[in-house]
């Protein structure tokens, strides 16, 4: 389903090149739950940014359903991104929209009808337990609520893949557990999940595939991995 082939990404800091990813290759199968782990600066976020076509790799290719995503023309990028749901570490909720509107926005850009939007948003709000916070603005929500709203937005349009970049980075252990349970449930419903984290407890409790990055290289790729750095 997703194939990273010999991905290298080099940033230029003045005259000094910084290698964020070096010759990274791995594949993700449909409905798989893959955790990408590593210390800060290991290249986890860069990998997700490349997959979302936010940035271009210095070399290598990324295929999504056999299509090289960096060959997609700029005006076709929005439709590619609609196949992916993203949960950002800093939530990235639209501050001038309510929880309901934030979630509905993804369906609106896809051209869904008002009736479908109402049904789907209510359904995911219920799934993430935010029904009573539908009309609240992001600034009125707690960190855990914001992250659940971001997850609801990522899954409302039933994407093929959910990318979660440190989704529990700003949360306490109680909310962390809650969010991971939610992601596991979404995966069990058939959505591929790629989770980037450096939270040892999460990885060890998941017992799913773990790809470990260190200094931009894959040092381990295990089917039922544990966090070992």
């Amino acid at each position, binding site marked *: 389903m997703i194939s990273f082939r010999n991905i290298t990404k080099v940033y230029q800091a003045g005259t000094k090149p910084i290698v964020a990813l070096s010759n990274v290759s791995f594949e993700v199968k449909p409905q798989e739950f893959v955790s990408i782990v590593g210390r800060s600066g290991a290249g986890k976020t860069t990998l997700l940014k490349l997959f979302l076509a936010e940035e271009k790799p210095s070399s290598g290719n990324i295929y999504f359903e056999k299509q090289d995503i960096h060959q997609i023309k700029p005006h076709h990028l*929005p*439709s*590619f991104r609609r196949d992916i749901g993203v949960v950002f570490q800093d939530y*990235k909720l*639209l501050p001038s929209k309510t929880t309901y509107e934030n979630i509905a926005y993804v369906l609106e850009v896809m051209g869904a009808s008002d009736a479908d939007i109402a049904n789907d948003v209510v359904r995911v709000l219920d799934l993430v337990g935010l029904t009573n916070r539908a009309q609240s603005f992001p600034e009125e929500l707690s960190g855990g609520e914001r992250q659940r709203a971001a997850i609801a*937005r990522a899954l409302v349009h039933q994407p093929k893949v959910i990318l979660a970049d440190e989704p529990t980075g700003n949360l306490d252990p109680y909310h962390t557990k809650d969010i991971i349970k939610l992601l596991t449930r979404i995966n069990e419903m058939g959505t591929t999940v790629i989770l980037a984290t450096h939270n040892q407890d999460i990885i060890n409790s998941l017992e799913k595939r773990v790809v470990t990055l260190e200094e931009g290289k894959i040092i381990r790729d295990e089917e039922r991995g544990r966090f070992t750095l």
Partner: protein
Amino acid sequence: MNASLKRIIKSGWTGFRRNSGLSLATVFIMVMAISLVTSLFLLQKTTGYLVTALSEKVDMAVYFNEEPSTDEIDVIQKELTGLPEIKSLQYISKEEALAKFIARHQNEDVIMESIEEVGGNPLLASLNIKAFEATQYAAISSFIDSASFKDLISKVDYSEKKPAIDKMFSLTSTISNTGIGLSIVLAIVAVLIAFNTVRIAIYNSRDEIETMRLVGASNWFIRGPFLVQGMIGGLLAVLITFLVFGITLWFLSPKIDMIIPGLNLFSYFFGSFLVVIALQLAAGVGLGACASWLAMRKHLKV
């Protein structure tokens, strides 16, 4: 209406309402910009009116040595009518000149007594000439100096009035040019400030724009609400400016009429309703939309 368009307009309106502080600041700046453009329009009208009024007051009189015969008058009039610069000619005989003089000064005893003392008619027959434009009198004057009837002429009063006329037009033209120049500079400054205000408002939303891109919104879906917000701001600014100018001119027009008789800026403002509205809409809505469009370009490259 297309569902997407409806959503874009609704989203633009909601954004405008929810960011009311910034929206009102933008509207205020736009009111300033549109006011300057409208002032420029009114200033042009005022200076134009002044120049026309002054031009109409300027004329030229050719005085004859003796009362010319009817044939001579015909020849003179025929010769002058051929000049493209001449708008109208009016022959005033000695009798008519005296009658007019008496009518004008009948309450001034000293003058009336002087006329009686002189006895007879001391005034000269004359030909009053009006040109289409004040600048054309010099050409008419030099034509008369070399005309076939020049021996019949006692004097042409143009050369006496010329320095005063030139000074008056030079002053009017300076006031007009300075005013227009100053208004244009101020209008450009106001447009740049309005443009920058919209740019800052959009710059503040750059993270939001990036998020919209990353969740799959097309450029139009992102840009649309910002354009709508800019246009709503522009429209509101137009309405406010129109009302402010309407009310101000309503109160000031009688006073302006006292200073410059015949100039009614209120009637002119509403008489040119379509032009004024078109000018203001172009300045307001156009400015809001253009500024939003240009400011967004940079942020849509994620």
